[in-house]
C-alpha cells in the first residue's frame, strides 16, 4: 500500500460521508416541502421520490394541455364494466337523486352534496387527454365543478396536506396532494362531451385529475376526507393502487 492509495482511500471515504450527509439533508428538506410520496418505503422509493419531487418542482402550477372540440375522440374508451353493486343500482334507478358526496376531516363545515347542488355551482369544462398507465388514451370534454370550489365551501383548515377520495365501488380509493387538489383543472366531474357523465365513465360523479394518469381519476366518488397525513388510511401508502403494486403518484 503506497501513501498515494491511502490518500485516495481517505478521499473516497470523505466523499462517501459527504454524499451520505448530502442525501440525508436533501431528504429532510424534501420532507419539509412535501416532496416525498407516501409509497417511498419500497425498493423503488428513491426513483419514486425523485420523480415526484422533480415533477412537483417543475409542474406546480402548470395547466394540462387543452384541445379543440374537433380533437375530441369519437370513441372514448370506458375501461372496465360499470359498477353493479346493489347500493349503486338502487341510486341509479332514481337517476342518482339520492347520491351524496360527503366531505369530512380537516374542514370547518363538514357537509354533503347532491349532484344537483354541485351542478348549481359555477361549472368548469375542459377538453383534456386521459391516458391509462397501460398505454391507451382518449381526448374528451369534462364538465364539473372545480374541486377547490367544493373545498372552499366546506372551509379547508390550513394544516391540510392531502385530499383522500373514496369510490362507492369497494376497494377504490385514492388521494392527491394540495397542489393537485387546489389546481383549477381538478374537477368533481358530472358531465362528458356535452351530456351527463355516463355510468361507464364514472357517473354520476368522478374526480378528474388531468395532470395524472387515468387511475387517479376515480369513478363513483362518494366521500372526500381532508387530512394532514395518509398514515391512517389503508396500509398507509396513500391510496389503493400502491397496495396492488402501482405508484401513488401518477404524473408520469
Amino acid at each position, binding site marked *: 500500500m503506497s501513501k498515494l492509495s491511502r490518500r485516495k482511500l481517505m478521499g473516497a471515504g470523505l466523499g462517501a460521508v459527504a454524499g451520505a450527509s448530502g442525501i440525508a439533508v436533501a431528504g429532510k428538506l424534501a420532507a419539509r416541502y412535501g416532496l416525498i410520496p407516501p409509497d417511498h418505503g419500497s425498493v423503488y422509493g428513491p426513483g*419514486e421520490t425523485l420523480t415526484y419531487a422533480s415533477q412537483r418542482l417543475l409542474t406546480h402550477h402548470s395547466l394540462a394541455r387543452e384541445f379543440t372540440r374537433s380533437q375530441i375522440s369519437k370513441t372514448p374508451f370506458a375501461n372496465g364494466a360499470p359498477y353493479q353493486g346493489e347500493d349503486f343500482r338502487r341510486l341509479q334507478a332514481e337517476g342518482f337523486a339520492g347520491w351524496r358526496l360527503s366531505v369530512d376531516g380537516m374542514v370547518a363545515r363538514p357537509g354533503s352534496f347532491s349532484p344537483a347542488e354541485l351542478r348549481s355551482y359555477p361549472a368548469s369544462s375542459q377538453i383534456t387527454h386521459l*391516458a391509462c398507465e397501460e398505454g391507451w388514451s382518449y381526448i374528451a370534454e369534462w364538465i364539473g365543478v372545480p374541486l377547490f370550489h367544493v373545498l372552499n365551501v366546506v372551509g379547508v383548515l390550513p394544516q391540510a396536506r392531502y385530499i383522500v377520495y373514496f369510490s362507492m365501488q369497494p376497494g377504490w380509493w385514492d388521494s392527491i396532494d394540495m397542489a393537485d387538489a387546489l389546481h383549477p383543472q381538478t374537477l368533481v366531474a358530472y358531465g362528458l362531451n356535452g351530456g351527463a357523465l355516463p355510468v361507464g365513465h364514472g357517473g354520476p360523479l368522478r374526480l378528474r385529475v388531468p395532470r395524472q394518469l387515468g387511475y387517479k381519476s376515480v369513478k363513483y366518488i362518494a366521500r372526500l376526507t381532508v387530512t394532514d397525513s395518509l398514515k391512517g388510511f389503508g396500509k398507509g401508502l396513500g391510496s389503493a393502487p400502491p397496495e396492488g403494486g402501482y*405508484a401513488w403518484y401518477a404524473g408520469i
Partner: protein
Amino acid sequence: MALLVSGVEILISHPRFYWGEAGNVLTPSLFALPIPASRSTVPTGYGFVLPDQNGWSRYLHFQAAWAAVFTGLVYCASGLFTRHFRRKLVPAGADLSWRAISSSIANHLRFKPPGKAEDGSYNVLQRLSYLLVIFVLFPLAIWTGLAMSPAIASAFPFAVTVFGGQQSARTIHFFVTVFLVFFVLVHIVMIYLAGFGSRMRAMITGRARARKEHA
C-alpha cells in the same frame, strides 16, 4: 436491461401503437404486435390473458431511467472533460468521405478482421454508430419517455407536440428501443468476431494493447 425487461412488461399491457395524440382499442391502430396482452380489454386474437405485471414494471422502469440518466450525465461530463468524445468518437475529416465509409462497410461485409491500426481506436462506422447511440438514441428515448408523462406534458407542451402527440411519442419510444436492442446485438456479435476474451479484457481494463499482450 432493467429498462428493457420492464418496458416489455409495460408494452404487453397494450401491444398496439397509434400516431397522433390519442388512441385506444376502439380506434384503428398504426400497427399491433402479434403477441398476447396482459389485459382482457385488448383484442389480440389469443384466447388467454397474461398476468398483470405493470405495477412493479413501472416502478422499476422509472427508477432504472433515473439511474440511466445519472450514469449518462457522468459519462457525458467525463467524455467532454477528458476529450474522449473528440479524440475517440468524432471521425476524422478524411474518414467522412463516401469512399472511406463505403470501404469500411465493404470490409465489414467481407468479415475482414480489424487491422492493427484499429487496436487502440474505433473505425469510422463504429464512431458514427456510437455517436448516434450516445447523442441521438439515448436522448430521444428519455425525451419520448418524458413526453408520455401527463405532468411533464402540462409543463412543457412543446416536448409533446414536436412528435405530433403523446401516442406518437410512445410509438417513437418503441422504435428507439428496437434500434438500441439492435445496436447491442450487433455490438456483441462484433466483439465475438474480434476475439471475445481480449476485447472484454480491453473494455474492463481500458488497455488497448490487451490483444497483443495475450496473443
